[in-house]
């Protein structure tokens, strides 16, 4: 169940009851359960909040949740211009891993992965987190060197990572073509066994349900159109549903971050691009893990329901239209066939795109801004789903205390001026 159209609640909330027994007579439909309870209220905005979070994707929802849970801040509104998780959150290909190169990245991505490991109990909601491992394939001598370097860096940071030879790759994922007789032979792979996938819409709903239970207002159909800034300090937001005063404003608008920052007179080192993905029809379980290849340029996993889920790189031009060009998908599928000849008869069922906010160093921007009480979380580009709990945790800390959490302290906006970049293009290349 992946993709934007697939937003029907597939399982009842834990509080759903079967009301059949209490009904007087049997009739058609009585054998069916009632409509599940709604997971959150749909409140109208109040005139003022302690914290207004802009963007009801995974990051905004997780930030609101951890503000309440870790910091006791509950007078919060999450404002979403469309519907909850209608942006990148329910469009991503759900890969979760922490095998990035630099210490700074290891810090925040591994913090997130640890949170994923207990998130289902924490949210008391099924999120189908499956630690099926990820293989990052190497296809050239340089790939091998870079991959091993990353494995060793990961090991030094206490992250599970191994180098696998081609035969070992085939043991983890028997359908990968390891024949030497192809254009880009598989020469080995890095392997992170604790990596995996989760069901992205359930993750969003799980956070939303808990946030709502804390009394946080999740307000959909509410677009922020302006920021009220006086003497270098933000005082509230202007929205399509009226002005809302705010003690603090936390931006978590992913692809639209530049648009929101411009409302505060800020220019960001971001470019918003279409990023596409696609799924096949439902197939028998054939693909036990996640396989990514920077050189052949595709990544593939198989969702719980059975679709093959594929993605690759961004469309080259800037785009806010949530769609991309067909030749990009054609190349993705050609690459997938190169690695998995067994997919030759599979059919593409659906394609879609999100708007991803890319930075020059493929690392995010999370922290303070030159405007007082205005906080910024953006630049996660093609790889922020895996960070959802981790960044929610750290961004909540930043907003609540006015100081960055140690894990997001390296990811400042001013690193582009100081030069302290965190270059993760190598670990991120094909998209994360």
């Amino acid at each position, binding site marked *: 169940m992946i993709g934007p159209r697939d937003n029907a609640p597939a399982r009842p909330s834990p509080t759903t009851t079967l009301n059949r027994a209490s009904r007087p007579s049997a009739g058609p439909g009585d054998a069916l359960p009632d409509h599940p309870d709604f997971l959150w209220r749909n409140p109208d905005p109040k005139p003022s909040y302690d914290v207004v979070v802009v963007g009801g994707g995974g990051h905004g929802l997780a930030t609101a949740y951890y503000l309440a849970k870790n910091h006791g801040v509950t007078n919060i509104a999450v404002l979403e211009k469309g519907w909850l998780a209608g*942006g990148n959150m329910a469009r991503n290909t759900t890969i979760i891993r922490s095998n990035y190169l630099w210490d700074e990245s290891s810090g925040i991505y591994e913090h997130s992965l640890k949170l994923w490991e207990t998130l289902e109990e924490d949210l008391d909601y099924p999120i189908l987190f499956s630690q099926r491992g990820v293989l990052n394939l190497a296809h050239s001598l340089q790939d091998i060197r870079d991959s091993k370097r990353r494995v060793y860096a990961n090991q030094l940071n206490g992250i599970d990572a191994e180098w696998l030879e081609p035969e070992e790759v085939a043991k983890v994922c028997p359908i990968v073509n390891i024949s030497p007789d192809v254009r880009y032979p598989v020469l080995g792979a890095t392997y992170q066994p604790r990596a995996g996938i989760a069901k992205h819409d359930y993750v969003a709903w799980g956070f939303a349900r808990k946030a709502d239970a804390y009394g946080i207002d999740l307000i959909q159909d509410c677009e922020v159109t302006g920021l009220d800034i006086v003497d270098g300090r933000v005082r509230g937001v202007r929205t399509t549903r009226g002005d809302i005063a705010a003690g603090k404003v936390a931006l978590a608008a992913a692809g639209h971050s*530049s648009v929101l920052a411009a409302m505060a007179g800020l220019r960001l*080192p*971001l470019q918003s691009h279409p990023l596409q993905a696609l799924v096949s029809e439902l197939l028998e379980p054939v693909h036990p893990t996640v396989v990514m290849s920077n050189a052949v340029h595709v990544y593939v996993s198989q969702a719980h329901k059975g679709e093959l889920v594929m993605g690759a790189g961004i469309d080259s*031009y800037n785009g*806010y239209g949530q769609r991309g*060009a067909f030749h990009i998908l054609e190349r993705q599928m050609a690459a997938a066939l190169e690695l998995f000849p067994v997919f030759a008869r599979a059919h593409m069922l659906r394609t879609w795109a999100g708007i991803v906010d890319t930075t020059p160093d493929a690392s995010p921007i999370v922290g303070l801004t030159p405007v007082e009480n205005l906080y910024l979380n953006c630049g996660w580009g093609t790889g922020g789903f895996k960070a959802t709990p981790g960044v929610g945790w750290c961004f909540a800390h930043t907003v609540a205390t006015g100081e960055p959490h140690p894990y997001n302290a390296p990811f400042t906006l001013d690193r582009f*001026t100081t030069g302290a970049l965190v270059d993760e293009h190598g670990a991120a290349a094909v998209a994360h």
Partner: protein
Amino acid sequence: MQLIACPWCGEREEIEFHYGGEAHIAYPEDPYALDDEQWAQYVFFRDNPKGPFAERWVHSAGCRRWFNALRDTVTHEFLTVYGIGAERPSHTSTAPAAPRAKGQEASR
């Protein structure tokens, strides 16, 4: 596939072109005079508008020449193409894109 009008070759398929990002970013006239903030702006910071955007394209699989374009980043429509070194045309002077109803840009 989207067609792009190369100023020299006419309309060709999108795959013949490569993207060059924001247009009108000149190399600093006196590089030694720039402070870190100005260098950061020159190297890393770019406009990222939702709507018309002046950007560079190259017809790599054709005449291999660069040109500028004004393109709408929501519809991906090319509003106009113009030469490298020419002024950015004001997009109101080209055929206006079909007006979008309020709210239509939202992500549904």
